[in-house]
């Protein structure tokens, strides 16, 4: 039986990592950096949080967790992990002017390897005496819903039944949209992404804008990884479980035509498409489910082609996207 009240919350839960990833990537791309390392950054954000909370849970060992620390430690670890990835990307592409595509792909290789390696070997490296990484105590704090979620019927189920990071994701997207559209900082950031030479001539510190926006973008995207493992996956790390969500987040940036506020709804749409195969009828033919799983990618491809066909000026990527700026090279 298909029930919208059951379907939408699941779609929203799927959408949160995508939303955080695409908001982060949008901010990054607005500065002219095409960061293809986002999938890797999200893995690093997730595993850093897991490492932090793993050691905290180990140090408490069976005792009661402090609610504040149980959320604070993974959060800070995750932010630091993804910040370091962001700094690495900026150092290579902005300071050393390396090719952005290659740097991004190398970061994805490294980040996914980093996540899977520590996810698979953390227990052995730490010499801990547990069979698998299962941070259910920490996860309980992350996925705590608002108190009136269960008492308000279907409205509560649709609106209030998510962990706090889901609301953080929406707030970040709204703030990002506001800053990009309405503030001076946003205007200058867009100028850097459109034409860094002109921005530089106008006295804007191009290097600083690129560094700050890319690092912030990575930190936001890293939170997406943290949400996935702590809330969605109930604190259980399994290798490669995060899958291709990082790439979908990058595709979502185009789908939302570089507008984080549109991202809120389109990420929920994508989240729905991502799990749609569970609801479509396939009878005894389980193989059809594999075909249904194609839907989000086909939709992305179609949107990509349509936006390029319509070729409207306001829907185009930042003009200098993917190129590095060197003042003396005109």
């Amino acid at each position, binding site marked *: 039986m298909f029930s919208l009240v059951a379907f939408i919350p699941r779609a929203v839960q799927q959408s949160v990592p995508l939303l955080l990833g695409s908001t982060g990537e949008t901010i990054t791309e607005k500065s002219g950096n095409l960061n293809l390392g986002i999938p890797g950054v999200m893995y690093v954000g997730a595993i850093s949080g897991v490492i932090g909370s793993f050691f905290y849970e180990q140090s408490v060992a069976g005792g009661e967790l402090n609610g504040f620390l149980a959320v604070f430690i993974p959060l800070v670890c995750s932010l630091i992990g993804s910040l370091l990835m962001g700094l690495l990307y900026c150092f290579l592409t902005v300071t050393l002017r390396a090719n952005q595509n*290659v740097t991004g*792909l190398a970061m994805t290789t490294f980040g996914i390897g980093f996540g899977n390696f520590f996810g*698979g070997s953390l227990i052995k490296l730490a010499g801990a005496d547990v069979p698998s990484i299962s941070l259910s105590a920490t996860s309980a704090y992350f996925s705590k819903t608002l108190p009136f979620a269960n008492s308000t019927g279907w409205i509560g189920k649709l609106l209030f039944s998510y962990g706090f990071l889901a609301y953080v994701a929406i707030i970040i997207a709204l703030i990002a949209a506001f800053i990009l559209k309405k503030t001076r900082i946003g205007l200058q950031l867009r100028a850097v992404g459109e034409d860094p030479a002109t921005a530089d001539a106008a006295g804007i510190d191009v290097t600083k804008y690129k560094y700050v926006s890319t690092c912030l973008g990575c930190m936001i995207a890293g939170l997406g990884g943290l949400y996935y493992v702590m809330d969605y996956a109930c604190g259980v790390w399994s290798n490669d479980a995060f899958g291709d969500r990082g790439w979908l987040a990058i595709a979502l940036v185009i789908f939302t035509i570089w507008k984080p506020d549109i991202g809120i709804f389109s990420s929920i749409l994508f989240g729905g498409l991502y799990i749609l195969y569970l609801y479509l009828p396939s009878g005894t033919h389980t193989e059809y489910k594999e075909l249904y799983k194609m839907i989000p990618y086909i939709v992305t491809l179609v949107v990509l*082609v349509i936006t390029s066909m319509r070729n409207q000026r306001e829907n185009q990527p930042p003009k200098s996207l993917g190129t590095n700026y*060197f003042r003396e090279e005109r």
Partner: protein
Amino acid sequence: MAKNKIKEPRYHIVKRTEISASKAWIIRAAALLSALVVCGIVTMVCTGDNPISIFATIFKGAFGTQRKTWITFQYVAILLIISLALTPAFKMQFWNVGGEGQVLMGGLAAAACMITLDGKLPNAVVIILMILTSILAGAVWGVIPALFKAKWNTNETLSTLMMNYIATQLVAYFTIVWEVPKGSGKIGIINQNSNIGWLPNIGNKYLLSILVAVLVTVSMYIYLKYTKHGYEIAVVGESQNTARYVGISVEKVIIRTMLLSGAICGLAGLLLVGGINHTITTTISDGQGFTGVMVSWLAKFNPIGMIFTSLLIIFMDRGASEISTAFELNQSFADILTGIILFFIIGCEFFIRYQINVKKDSGKENA
């Protein structure tokens, strides 16, 4: 750099006009050496072993026995073919990150021939059909994003990426359709008894891929360096406007080059399915479509250089997996080491392209 108004910057970065090849190689070798040192330190921290035995283990993993050496060269051959396939596209600034999907489609076509034609046609005909269909399937998968790019300037990085996932799901679909036994979710070795569609062994079972790789390397070198097509690719890569001005049809070059790029990826898929694994899974190309991007770029798109860069990547990969087996660590350890090496080599290009002049006290002319 620093605050220009208050004090002049202490250093000044200028683009090098030219750099001798030997100096460039010294910089690259220094970067590689520092990367290996960092890899050694990371491994030491994770395993507690001493650096000399770590590198001995890495070497043993890649070249320890005759069989391991052959397998290493076979892996190099496949990665090299995929990297070479991507190269002409990169040379015209078309970021084909869809190698993964193109390889999968090639492999799927080969597997389809092996499964459906088993017992209906003689082996030689099946093999010829496999070669044709897998090359065609790869080419089709490569040319679809190229058509979008040529017609509407659709971003090729993202469209090729999406094509990867569509290909993965297609393979997943056929895996279930053809699964043996039913419900296992795997195809298993195809035609284990009849060996229909198994590519012939030359000498031993590893040599065929290596010979194909040599052939593709030499042809690609000649194609890019000495033919009109290769020259047109280079012009389009430098500047599409220049290309249009001299009368090159940019659209035609993009479509033609991606047909070629996809076709060679399809060939790699054929070798993986028909020559090496004799089965197909969704992970058969194992991320090499992405690794190939880096192999190709690291070698500055030079086919001969790619022999060394792909050897380096595979060597570290096999070595690191030997370490992870020896110390019961996760196999992804290889990705971390590969990542570290890539970061150093990517970073060192800066010192080849630019020169840092430290400013002396007296005023040199300094913009």
